[in-house]
């Protein structure tokens, strides 16, 4: 359902026109074609709006009042970057869409190579999404990360994506290639100047080989006024374990769109996450999971806590193609609404063309359980504290399934901090 082509351009679209013209004029011959093709693909669709089915609950055309100017190259202080906090990591910093080696780790890690790129991905994107095309039309830079076959990377690979400045936008393109038999933990944070209004648009393409073991934690802690769009395209080989977790806390508007395809048999993928929303935040997680080969297992478990006038959107589509027999796909969305004005739109979908599969989806939404609350209070725990305990418990259940101990600790600490419950006993 494409938008009619004759729709009137918004202010944001007009700004984008000027930005594209300026960046295109500076683009080298080598990349000009790709930039132009991406721009044409974007222009054919325009900024997505509610009549585009995949964006129905996130009317970006209305919410994006303007497209901020492309951020220039800056050099923020190292201590502005939060990343994974105190964890010892191998850090890769990307500032305003560009690789920032001066803020990145400089040691060599066997089996890991990092290269600065111009941000253009392979011409065949895994998606035909307008905002992914826009990323490639305006991309400012990026990196490629390569993990050799059978390499076991001990340190977490920390990708810090920082947008520096206010009223600016950043576009980065990243490729990640993980060789067969490799093992890695990737912690990726999206952040920026506190209280700054900015727009970040990241496009990342991940290819994982056979028999690999990958854990990927995304920390979305953008400034409270930011607009965040991330497109992640993932292809998985055979007998691989891929576990992804989104921690969604920042941004006034966020959209995480994941396109995952099973390319090899007997692979497990877990897509999980927690969203912690308040004020007028709007957070959208949209998944397309394609089972194209037999014997794969996918888990899509997301939990949200929504307060004030915030709104969580979840759309998850699992497609099981005819060849994908013995597919096991389970999707479950659970939401706690903490106020009468909080909202969730949950749309889990299954499209099954194979006949021997186990698939299920479900969604529950509710308030804090009064019986649980009474039990805690009857033991002497004051109501406000009891409520925090129950919210933390609700989110912890999802967090603990990520099964990377250092990440679980980090996520629980961040969750406690969001709840203003830092003093809460944690063991």
């Amino acid at each position, binding site marked *: 359902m494409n938008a009619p082509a004759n729709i009137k351009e918004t202010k944001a679209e007009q700004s984008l026109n000027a930005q594209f013209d300026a960046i295109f004029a500076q683009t080298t011959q080598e990349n000009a074609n790709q930039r132009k093709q991406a721009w044409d693909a974007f222009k054919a669709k325009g900024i997505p709006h509610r009549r585009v089915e995949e964006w129905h609950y996130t009317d970006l055309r209305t919410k994006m009042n303007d497209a901020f100017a492309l951020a220039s190259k800056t050099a923020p202080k190292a201590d502005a970057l939060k990343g994974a906090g105190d964890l010892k990591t191998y850090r890769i910093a990307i500032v305003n869409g560009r690789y920032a080696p001066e803020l990145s780790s400089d040691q060599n890690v066997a089996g890991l190579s990092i290269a600065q790129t111009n941000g253009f991905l392979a011409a065949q994107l895994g998606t035909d999404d307008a905002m992914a095309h826009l990323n490639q039309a305006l991309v400012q830079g990026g990196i490629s990360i390569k993990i050799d076959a059978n390499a076991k990377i001990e340190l977490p690979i920390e990708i810090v994506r920082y947008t520096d400045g206010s009223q600016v936008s950043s576009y980065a393109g990243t490729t990640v290639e993980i060789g067969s038999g490799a093992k890695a933990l990737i912690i990726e944070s999206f952040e920026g100047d506190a209280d700054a209004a900015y727009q970040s648009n990241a496009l990342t393409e991940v290819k994982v080989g056979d028999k690999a073991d990958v854990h990927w934690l995304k920390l979305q802690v953008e400034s409270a006024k930011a607009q965040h769009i991330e497109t992640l395209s993932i292809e998985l080989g055979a007998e691989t374990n891929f576990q992804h977790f989104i921690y969604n806390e920042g941004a006034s508007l966020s959209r995480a769109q994941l396109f995952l395809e099973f390319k090899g048999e007997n692979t497990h993928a877990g897509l999980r996450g927690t969203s912690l929303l308040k004020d007028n935040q709007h957070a959208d997680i949209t998944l397309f999971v394609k089972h194209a080969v037999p014997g794969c297992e996918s888990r899509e478990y997301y939990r949200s806590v929504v307060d004030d006038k915030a709104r969580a959107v979840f759309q998850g589509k699992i497609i099981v193609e005819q060849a994908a027999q013995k597919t096991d796909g389970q999707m479950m969305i659970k939401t706690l609404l903490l106020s009468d004005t909080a909202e969730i739109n949950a749309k889990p979908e299954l499209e099954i063309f194979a006949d021997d599969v186990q698939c299920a989806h479900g969604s529950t939404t509710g308030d804090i359980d009064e019986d649980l609350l*009474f039990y805690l209070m009857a033991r002497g*725990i004051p109501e406000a504290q009891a409520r925090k305990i129950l919210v933390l*418990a609700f989110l912890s259940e999802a967090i603990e399934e990520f099964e990377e101990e250092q990440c679980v600790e980090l996520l629980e600490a961040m969750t406690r901090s969001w709840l203003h419950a830092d003093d809460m*006993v944690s063991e």
Partner: protein
Amino acid sequence: MLEIKNLHAEVDGNKILRGIDLTVRPGEVHAIMGPNGSGKSTLSYVLAGKDDYEITEGSISYNGVDWAELGADERAAAGMFLAFQYPIEIPGVATMTFLKTALNAQRKARGEDEISTPDFMKLVREKSKELKVTPDMLKRPLNVGFSGGEKKRAEILQMSLLEPTLCVLDETDSGLDIDALRVVSEGVNQLRSPERSMIVITHYQRLLDHIVPDVVHVLSKGKIVKTGGKELALELEKNGYADYVGEEAA
């Protein structure tokens, strides 16, 4: 001392308690027996301060404090403990974390210092051994995956850790086999003391073989219709509740 005077209470507009008078002095154990639907569990929830249980007439005071003024958490800090008939499962809350949080919340409310982690661990180890609560149970989320007997033992463990002065045991014997009943009863008996009042709510007499009460009350249609010594329980076991509740006997 617990003093209940002419207590009327309702839930969702349904009148359940219709004028209860009851005084429990320190050191006393009172049993409240009665058929299903007589208001036994309602009385326990009203005492503990559950939100949707509304006192419409009469009063409850404990050690001179008007209970209506206090929330459930404040009553707990003032010495109240309800051992639930159906202890609820709370996924995501580790049992040890919960125990420590509850103990410290009560201490804080009473203006006492928080217990240190080593002291707390030592205390839990001692008490849990007596009640056959395994370290594995303490590691699990609160009551999650516990058997009926384990849940009841965990309740008594909480009671023994929190050291309340007013204990209400709501059908603690339900779902227990003979061995579990003995362990739980021994745990309760160890907590009997001259400073502590207990109300044991039960449907059957068998619990009272283990926890011998000083006074037995029969509750019917929201009122206490008969009060006697421990021999009253034996009489009820023999003749049923029919003499006290007429045709609506269980």
